[in-house]
């Protein structure tokens, strides 16, 4: 029985990696962004995760700054935090490409090992691939990103 419990603990560590827990506890770029040019909401009403993503995009189409606020589980908060870390400095089309890469990795459509771009720290999220019930938590911020760039007013939902 102990063995089983230990194996389980290791599996859990694959989902709740240190980097995820760190971003969940101390989310980066957390708060409202004054001067945001693009914003979007992500809401999963059934599970209660909510976030508001703010982007500042310059005339050249580059994301100069990004922030988010909201509440949710460790996975959704860490994912939003990692997202803001990862997209600042990207052009709109590169950010949309990253959305495609990340969401297809998280939903299991693409093996992260074969991804075209190096996802860097975002690879910490790949543990959710084994937790179908939690994929929606990890992808919420990313769908909000796409909506913000596409200037869609409807909140993003992933459940």
């Amino acid at each position, binding site marked *: *029985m102990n063995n*089983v*419990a230990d*194996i*389980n*603990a290791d*599996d*859990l*560590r694959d*989902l*709740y990696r240190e980097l995820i*827990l760190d971003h969940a506890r101390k989310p980066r770029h957390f708060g409202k962004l004054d001067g945001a040019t693009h914003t979007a909401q992500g809401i999963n009403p*059934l*599970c*209660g*995760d909510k976030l508001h993503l703010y982007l500042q995009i310059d005339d050249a189409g580059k994301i100069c700054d990004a922030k988010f606020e909201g*509440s*949710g*589980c*460790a*996975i959704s908060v860490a994912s939003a935090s990692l997202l803001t870390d990862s997209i600042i400095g990207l052009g709109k089309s590169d950010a949309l490409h990253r959305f495609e890469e990340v969401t297809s990795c998280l939903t299991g459509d693409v093996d992260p090992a074969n991804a075209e771009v190096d996802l860097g720290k975002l690879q910490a999220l790949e543990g959710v691939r084994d*937790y179908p*019930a*939690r994929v929606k*938590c990890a992808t919420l911020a990313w769908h909000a990103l796409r909506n913000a760039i596409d200037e869609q007013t409807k909140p993003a939902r992933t459940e």
Partner: protein
Amino acid sequence: MAQAQHDDRKNLAPLELRSDFPALQETINGQPLVYLDSAASAQQPARVIDAVAQYQRKDHANVHRGVHTLSHRATEAYEGARDKLQSFINAASRSEIVLTSGTTESINLVAQSFCRPKIGPGDKILITHLEHHSNIVPWQLLCEQTGAELLVAPMDDRGQLNLDALRAMLTDDVVLLAVGHVSNALGTVNPVKEIISWAKAQDITVLVDGAQGVPHMAIDVQDLGCDFYAFSGHKMFGPTGSGVLYGKESILEAMPPWQGGGDMILEVRFDTTTYNELPYKFEAGTPNISGVIGLGAAVDYITNIGIDKVARHEHDLLAYMTSKLAEIDGIRLIGTAEHKASVQSFMLDDIHPHDLGTILDHQGVAIRTGHHCAMPVMEFFGLPGTARASLALYNNRDDVDRLVAAVEKARQVFA
């Protein structure tokens, strides 16, 4: 005398019913399933599964029509279930047992068929802060349709109704009081008999949402004195999509039909249609025959064990679970009413309930996390949701010990 002593001992022994439930033989992530989500939906004993399968395999036909053998068998089993349900909640007549798809439909039926024709601006519907969404939204829809006003009786920070406030809200302009018997989010058992007596003194009609009451305690609708009592089959070990609206015969008689269709008529002509007698007036269309037959088998299952024995077993187990959870560092119990059944909601440190739910599931422990379809209750406590462990007659102390060990593990993961 010796026999009586033996029975007493037997009555005091904890129930061991796990083996009756095929789903509870599952292993999840290599460990025996600990199912603590019965408030969302209870598992079904083999007896229920077999009754449904027997009907599907051998007895399937439509009910109330046709002279052939299968139609007769199906009708016997379906109507037999109604009789069992009547005696299970001690209704005065089988005409008072309207078979519905569940508590939600039962409540909507009362809102639309009983209330809607008779209310308008200036009238009030009274509910409580503890209600499940299915005992809130049908009344909101009704108020939007009619201009009536929805009032909400308050609760305190233990999750108990403020009974003085509720009583003061039972004024002449209240047409109906809709109150839950047991809170699904917090487990609070409301003193419905007392509340009903106050309402009746003012001639106010009362609906009790009994979805969380029926699986855990003896229900006697005549003793309670309520006008309507609504409950679901799948919370009491029956199939989903089956349920009951109990209504007093005189009230049901005076109500117009809920939906039109086959089975709810005596005679149809283009110029006039005569409705069927009770309870068929409220059962338009081919019903959920297999679900109702399964529900009848669930009633037999509970009755054979004895609902009072179930209530005692769960009462002891809930006390054990609450005290064990309370010993965990960083735990916060949500819902600490004096009278409770089945449910304990909790938070652990600042861990989000969903993370807790995933970690527990990993250890084979199934709990519910989220707002439990009671968002106003969550808002009252300023929480996005809670973790909720809910007990049923098949749970035992081992289940509680596994829950506690799994919660401790969650603390380690997030330490």
